[in-house]
């Protein structure tokens, strides 16, 4: 059962972050007057379906994580879901066409191993 929750948590969180990043990257970069640029971001978030779908998927991930905590300890839940960092980076390279490169791959791998060590 706990692996089903890990699977649900990682999958919905990955979907949420990928949709949010794709949706927000279409926004005008905050340019010129900083405060003027920042002030329109909330309206942009609430009026774009892809971004809202990303937020909803992240809400599902949060609920799945709480459900995971009800059947497993935090020291299992956090390292088990850290694999999401690798999955999200792979999808960012393949689907969002980001130039990940060796520095980012090394950084992400170190972060994932670090999270594992932090919680065992």
């Amino acid at each position, binding site marked *: 059962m706990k692996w089903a929750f890990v699977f649900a948590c990682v999958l919905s969180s990955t979907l949420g*972050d*990928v949709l*949010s*990043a794709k*949706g*927000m*990257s*279409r*926004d*005008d*970069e*905050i*340019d*010129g007057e*900083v405060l003027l640029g*920042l002030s329109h*971001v*909330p309206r*942009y*978030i609430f009026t774009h379906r892809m*971004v809202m779908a990303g*937020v909803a998927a*992240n809400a599902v991930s949060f609920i799945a994580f709480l459900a995971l905590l009800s059947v497993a300890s935090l020291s299992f839940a956090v390292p088990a879901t850290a694999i999401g*960092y690798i999955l*999200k*980076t792979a999808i*960012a*390279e393949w689907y*969002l*066409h*980001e*130039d*990940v*490169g060796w*520095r*980012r791959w*090394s*950084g*992400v*791998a*170190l*972060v994932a*191993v*670090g*999270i*594992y*060590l*932090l*919680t*065992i």
Partner: protein
Amino acid sequence: MNLSARANLNRIFILLVVLSNTFGNFLLADGMNQMPNFFTTSFLSYTAALLANPYFLSGVALLAVWMGAQLTMFTWADLSYVLPVTASGYVLTALLSKYLLHEYISVGRWAGILLITFGSMLVYNTPPRTTPKPQGAAQ
């Protein structure tokens, strides 16, 4: 916006994402510890207690700030940049646990803190955006 202003905005938002997420989770955990048992309380009483809990409400407010700040960062930074760079929140959580809650940090956990810090710095030193803006953005 010139390059220096853009770099400063990026730093401010990294800090905002890390701090709001870390303190939001701390407040949420603190608030949930003060709640009655979910299985022995009626749903209405539990919801009323939740909505009257200042720690829970402050935690939720900070996590909303975290979500908004992270979404804003996606307008100028890649997903593969934002996630590892803001993972330094794990380090802050561990250090707060040691210095505020006086928890013991083992050698393995110190190694984890070093790896996350090094990994975040490695990604921080790459350009935040590697993809061109889509044509007709923000129409």
